[in-house]
């Protein structure tokens, strides 16, 4: 391991202050860091966050459960379907809803698709920040293809609001299945080419290896999760540790790194995309083998809105519709915690219900918010240009950071 440049503090030395952000084009989001610089080397930094704080936890205390899904979209907006699913599963855990296998597998497909979209952005942006713009434009086409699948399923692209409490709003249509299968066929080629551009690229390697490293102990003490923790060498993945949505039925591996530097984070994300492709392939096969060909939601009429034609023609459906919309359905009292493996790590929902239509308290465990604390320590003694790369490789998303 190459040694980091160290800074010796001298008595009469004057350091210069540099304002990195709040709206710096290289930080991909609104973060402010007031850096104390010794030439090109960072002596210290003072991060300020909260520029896009939207008080989601407060708003959530005033919204019925099903209206909180759009709030979760805006946490990590690069992989909003995972956030949506995480929230749905939290409420399903609270009301003890059992989902058909088919729905769970469909959810796995959506979550893994959005994981790929999330990692594609992060990895290609590492390329951009180290001066390789080509790869970025190249894979953005594939993110677009994934968004087209979301569009086919729920009508939205970025802030998807996909699915409902209890399943999906409608079944995947023919086009969606065709697009998923086409993606499975074509994406590996694109990923391969993306890797050819960067993985063994001498300039990219020199730029990223040993840039912003963090040890496994430090990462754990800062409660890192997700690819950033795995890059440091800890194989903690909630999909295997506490499987949800039938992840236990799938075979996949957890890639880990050794150094915890930018290159390892890049490689871990890269391998995770391959694993995601394999999981989606398994899920599609499993769904095809299932007896059940039609179910796309659980049988929980008091939480899942009935189809509109039934509301107009069927008394019972009308009553349920009314009860759901007016918040007349009883919810159990209690507190529940559910976490999913988001694009950036453990995305947890801590929900206290007092039996009312809104949560009494909803706390989001946002992985970005927790691991961004370590940024100050990670860039101490590094070059300014490495600080930019470190931030983009940590995939700090402002929406999730500030909630």
């Amino acid at each position, binding site marked *: 391991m190459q040694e980091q440049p160290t800074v010796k503090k001298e008595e009469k030395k004057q350091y210069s202050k540099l304002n990195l952000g709040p709206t710096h084009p290289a930080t991909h989001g609104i973060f402010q860091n007031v850096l104390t610089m010794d030439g090109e080397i960072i002596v210290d930094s003072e991060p300020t*966050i*909260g520029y896009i*704080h939207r*008080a989601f*936890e*407060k*708003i959530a*205390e*005033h919204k019925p459960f099903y209206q909180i899904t759009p709030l979760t979209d805006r946490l990590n907006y690069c992989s909003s379907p995972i956030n949506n699913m995480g929230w749905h599963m939290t409420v399903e*855990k*609270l009301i003890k809803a059992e989902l058909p296998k088919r729905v769970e597998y469909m959810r796995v497909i959506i979550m893994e698709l959005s994981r790929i979209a999330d990692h594609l952005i992060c990895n290609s942006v590492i390329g951009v920040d180290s001066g390789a713009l080509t790869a970025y434009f190249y894979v953005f086409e594939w993110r677009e293809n994934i968004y087209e699948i979301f569009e086919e399923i729920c009508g939205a692209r970025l802030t998807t609001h996909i699915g409902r409490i209890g399943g999906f709003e409608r079944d995947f249509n023919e086009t969606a299945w065709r697009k998923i299968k086409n993606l499975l066929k074509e994406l590996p080629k694109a990923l391969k080419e993306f890797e050819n551009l960067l993985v063994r690229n001498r300039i990219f390697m020199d730029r990223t290896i040993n840039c912003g490293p963090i040890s496994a102990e430090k990462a*754990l*003490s*800062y*409660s890192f999760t997700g690819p950033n923790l795995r890059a440091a060498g*800890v194989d*903690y993945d909630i999909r295997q*540790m*506490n499987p949800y949505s039938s992840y236990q039925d799938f075979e996949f591996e957890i890639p880990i790194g050794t150094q915890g530097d930018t290159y390892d984070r890049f490689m871990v994300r890269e391998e995770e995309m391959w694993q995601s492709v394999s999981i989606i392939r398994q899920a599609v096969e499993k769904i095809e083998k299932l007896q059940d060909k039609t179910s796309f939601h659980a049988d929980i009429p008091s939480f899942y809105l009935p189809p509109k034609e039934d509301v107009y023609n069927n008394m019972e459906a009308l009553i349920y519709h009314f009860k759901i919309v007016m918040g007349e359905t009883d919810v159990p009292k*209690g*507190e*529940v*915690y559910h*976490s999913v493996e988001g694009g950036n790590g*453990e995305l*947890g929902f*801590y929900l*206290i219900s007092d039996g009312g239509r809104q949560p009494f*308290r909803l*706390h989001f*465990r946002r992985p970005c*918010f*927790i691991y*961004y*604390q*370590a940024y100050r320590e990670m860039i101490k003694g590094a070059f300014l240009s490495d600080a930019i790369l470190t931030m983009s490789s940590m995939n700090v998303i402002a929406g999730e950071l*500030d*909630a």
Partner: protein
Amino acid sequence: MTKPTIEQIAEVLKEKFGQAVLNQEVQYDFTIFTIDKASILPIFRFLYEDEHFQFRFLTTACGIHLPENEQPFAMMYQLHSLVHNVRLRFKSYTSANDLQYDTITDLFPAANWMEREAFDFYGIRFKGHPNLKRILNVEDMDYHPMRKEYPLEDLTRYDKDDTMFGRDKAGFKKLN
């Protein structure tokens, strides 16, 4: 190493800290210990340092406001033993005129911003915290917005007045 059961952990905790463990319950497969405020740090340190349990990962921490309660404020902590994959939740209540906890940042550096968040939104103070100031809200804000007595709408805004629509300012309540 064998995975410790919740009963074993509870037994050891009760033996070591006796009175400090006020309550133990299970909600949705998650064990919750209600503990005395003064013993948070000793209990966490014991669980952290114990060679068998190894609760060395702080998943999350947050404040809670329960205005109906005799002790209306609480802190919630979730510890995770990654070696055994056991999760525990700790809750500790306090009264409004004693809104101070000991910081756990010495044990878990990750608690730094979580405690700042609890301070920002609930006004809970942390003794010994290295940098206890607001984190997500502006620094000159003079209230703690997640407390239940504050309505959703920002009280300091003067550009929003819904009285002509029959609603009181910010409160979303209907006027007569």
